[in-house]
């Protein structure tokens, strides 16, 4: 860096200091407060109390449930994801490309809205499917109870299997076909090749995807909150929610929550560490970056049945719940049959234009999403610039602090923000929209850093130096060269934050106040209060907003790639 005089404190150091300060305030302080509250009692370090909290039946059960549920979802999700990935990459299934896109749709849908739909369909007494079997077909008992471990695992699997699907289908597509061809020449049939060559080679991808499912499921709030609380199935995030909500500031509840949060953070760190190891050790060189055309397995007689099976799966997991949400959202009263005289647009009209609670929620989510995305995008580009481009000592700290929230579950971030910003340091923004904004910034900073660092790494130093040699000052070089080249990364970062923030529930449900509900919170609380039709109608609106947003981002990304 060239400054007029040799000073020890120039622009790089200033930017570095600012970046560290932002990340410390937003990320480090809340996180440290959680550990501090968990392990520090009356001014001294205390582990026995932590053990005591952990051995309390309530906490113990929550830990156990989190484990059972996440392991269950991981197993089923991995099987489902791997099977469909193999089907769309390595067989002659009809319409493979379209099917592949359809299998990614569940990623767009918020799991808690799915859970809501499944509750409407399969709750033991009122669920439409159960009622159909009992009332119309004369069954004595409901055919399936969604308020169980199995129900929760089933619903989470539907929305989390794409983690494995994406990883495995990617690996199968990139695998060098000569590896399989040479096995074939050696005399192995396709079944043997799949078993002995293909599966071992994609195993790292399967494991990595499976660990992502586990990480996500462990920290997942929505589905368990909708389906589990009814029958007393709590996992760690839902118990943290329960503790914070009933606590009203009680120290014991907050302590339990911080201990739970600590367990969650440690588990998440272990899972991410394992995933890193799997990825760095297991990515065989043979999976090249190029796209090859691998050998296809002829499904023969199974071709049509498997195709129908895929369609049925998509119909059952995407179309049915989505339709249910919109239909229930249009019902005059929950529980009425779906016939035209029971259906109305009045609910949609009411929540969109008349009811302050839902209108506030939509406004809150959109403004929170926009502002957190904008702030995080700009902060992210500056911090990434320091990390990627500047020669300052200790920028590893920045990287660590910025990426930390990536491994920290939303409920933990929310808890940390509560501890830090409800008066402890003279600032009390609890119950205001600002505390949610702060939590969103902390939560999504990692997304922004990833997108912006990737974009900045493309901008070679020599491009800036060429501008300097052409007579541009540092500012002019940034304006004319760096910013235009990084803009796509910034736009990507914006949408990577804006869309998840729109449908966010886990963080905001711990932080909302009377007038600061987000869409997610409004859907969830309306459902809790028995306002099922309004809850469904709002969920329908949310789905429309989310799908429109996803389409917009797809268009932006493809038009950028074409130019």
């Amino acid at each position, binding site marked *: 860096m060239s400054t007029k*005089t040799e000073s020890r404190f120039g622009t790089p150091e200033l930017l570095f200091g600012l970046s560290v300060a932002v990340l410390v305030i937003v990320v480090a302080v809340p996180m440290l407060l959680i550990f501090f509250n968990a392990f520090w009692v009356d001014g001294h370090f205390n582990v026995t109390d932590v053990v005591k909290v952990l051995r309390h039946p309530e906490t113990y059960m929550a830990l156990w449930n989190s484990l059972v549920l996440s392991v269950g979802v991981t197993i089923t999700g991995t099987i489902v994801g791997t099977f469909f990935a193999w089907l769309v990459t390595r067989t002659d299934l009809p319409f493979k490309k379209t099917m592949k896109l359809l299998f990614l749709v569940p990623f767009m849908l918020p799991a808690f809205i799915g859970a809501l739909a499944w509750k409407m369909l399969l709750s033991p007494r009122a669920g439409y499917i159960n009622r159909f079997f009992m009332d119309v077909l004369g069954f004595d008992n409901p055919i399936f109870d969604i308020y169980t471990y199995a129900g929760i695992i089933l619903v989470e699997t539907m929305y989390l299997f794409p983690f494995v699907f994406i990883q495995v289908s990617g690996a199968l597509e990139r695998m060098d076909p000569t590896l399989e061809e040479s096995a074939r020449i050696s005399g192995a049939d396709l079944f043997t090749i799949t078993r002995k060559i293909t599966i071992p080679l994609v195993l790292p991808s399967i494991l990595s995807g499976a660990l992502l499912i586990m990480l996500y499921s462990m920290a997942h709030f929505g589905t368990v909150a909708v389906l589990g609380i009814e029958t007393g199935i709590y996992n760690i995030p839902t118990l943290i929610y329960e503790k914070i909500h009933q606590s009203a500031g009680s120290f014991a509840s907050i302590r339990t929550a911080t201990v739970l949060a600590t367990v969650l953070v440690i588990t998440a760190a272990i899972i991410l560490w394992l995933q890193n190891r799997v990825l760095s050790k297991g990515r065989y060189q043979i999976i090249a970056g190029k796209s090859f055309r691998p050998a296809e397995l002829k499904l023969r007689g199974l071709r049509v049945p498997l195709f129908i099976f895929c369609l049925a799966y998509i119909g059952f997991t995407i179309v049915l719940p989505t339709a249910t949400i919109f239909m229930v959202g249009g019902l005059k009263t929950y529980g009425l049959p779906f016939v035209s005289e029971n259906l109305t647009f009045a609910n949609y009209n009411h929540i969109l234009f008349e009811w302050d609670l839902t209108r506030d929620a939509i406004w809150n989510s959109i403004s929170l999403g926009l502002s957190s995305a904008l702030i995080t995008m700009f902060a992210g580009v500056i911090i990434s610039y320091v990390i990627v481009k500047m020669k300052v000592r200790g920028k590893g700290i920045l990287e660590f602090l910025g990426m930390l929230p990536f491994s920290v579950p939303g409920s933990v971030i929310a808890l940390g923000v509560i501890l830090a910003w409800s008066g402890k340091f003279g600032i009390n923004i609890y119950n205001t929209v600002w505390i949610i904004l702060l939590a969103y910034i902390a939560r999504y900073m990692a997304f922004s850093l990833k997108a912006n660092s990737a974009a900045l790494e493309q901008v070679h130093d020599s491009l800036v130096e060429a501008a*300097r*040699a*052409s*007579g*541009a000052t540092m500012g*002019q070089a940034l304006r004319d060269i760096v910013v235009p080249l990084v803009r796509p990364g910034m736009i990507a970062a914006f949408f990577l934050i804006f869309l998840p923030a729109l449908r966010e529930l886990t963080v905001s449900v711990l932080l909302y106040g009377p007038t600061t509900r987000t869409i997610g919170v409004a859907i969830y609380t309306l459902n809790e209060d028995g306002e099922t039709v309004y809850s469904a109608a709002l969920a329908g609106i949310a789905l429309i907003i989310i799908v429109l947003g996803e389409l917009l981002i797809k268009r932006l990304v493809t038009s950028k790639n074409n130019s």
Partner: protein
Amino acid sequence: MANIQIKGVSKQYAGRSILADLSLDINDGECFTLLGPSGCGKTVLMRLIAGFETPDSGTISIGGEFVANAATGQMVPPDKRGLGMVFQDYAVWPHMSVFDNVAYPLKLAGTEAVSLRERTMRAVGLVGLDGLEQRLPSQLSGGQQQRVALARALVSEPRLLLLDEPLNNLDANLREEMRFEIKALQKKLGITILYVTHDQEIALAIADRVAVMDERGILRQIGAPEEVYEHPADDFVFRFLGIANFLPVRREGRDLFIGGSSTAWVGPTPDKAGGKFTAGFRPSDVMLARDSSGHPGLPGIIRRASFLGAQVDYLIDIAGTLVRAALPSHECLDRDLLFVEGDNCRVGLATVQWFEGDIIVGERV
């Protein structure tokens, strides 16, 4: 005036010394090449001149004006040094058209539109890219991108042009063509050029003067290309400027022998006193004769013979040391000098560079 004066410049990275107390004068209007192996610090020296690095000690001045002075902390930023620079990786801005790339320095200088357009098009024409000015860099070949970089460096008619291995990534034909073009441009515009490369052929072809730098960042020799080539200051320079053969020679009384053997040395004799020498010569300095012809010369055995079209390349064992010889094909045909492996021959040397002492030479394969 754009002469460069470098006085006592040192530069360290992470405690490792790259350049130590280096001094160098580059004259106004000359094409000066800095030749050295990769990683020797020549790019660092160029970046010091450009202003992307600050010297730990010493001064740099361009056109008689200090641009960097470690003692006073004075440092003129790169954009105020009035230079053009071509980077090793082109550094053509991918989001700007050829025209916008080339016009950028003029735009920054506030050139008015008509003159900007005219001068930009002239620079584009100068490097032979007419008609391509609306293309984006991604639509150009590597050689064309290189020329965009050159046009951009030239457009504002800088007093000093810095070229960092600009022809590295081009294919052989284009490299040769660009080499001539750069030289022609320099003559036409009368600018000072500093050209950094590890390719001795380009360095010699293009330069008015060459400086050879070794791995430790020390300048071994500065001089005109033919002077450096014909009278290398030491064996490093000799070795760096082309394929080098070395034969150890020992003096006993008045007689000369090869290495530790009893084979007598035939050829030019060293003009210095001393017991141990190394004879350095190029493959093209080797003259061959049939063993049976009765010509005087060192006895050799052909270990490998490769016919390369215009010339024939031989690997010859002389008293246990392998040397390479290159003979014009027509000469080999006319004089029956097409040897095969295992043939005996007589080796004569047209010129020899004498280095004192033993120079350890790696085994040649």
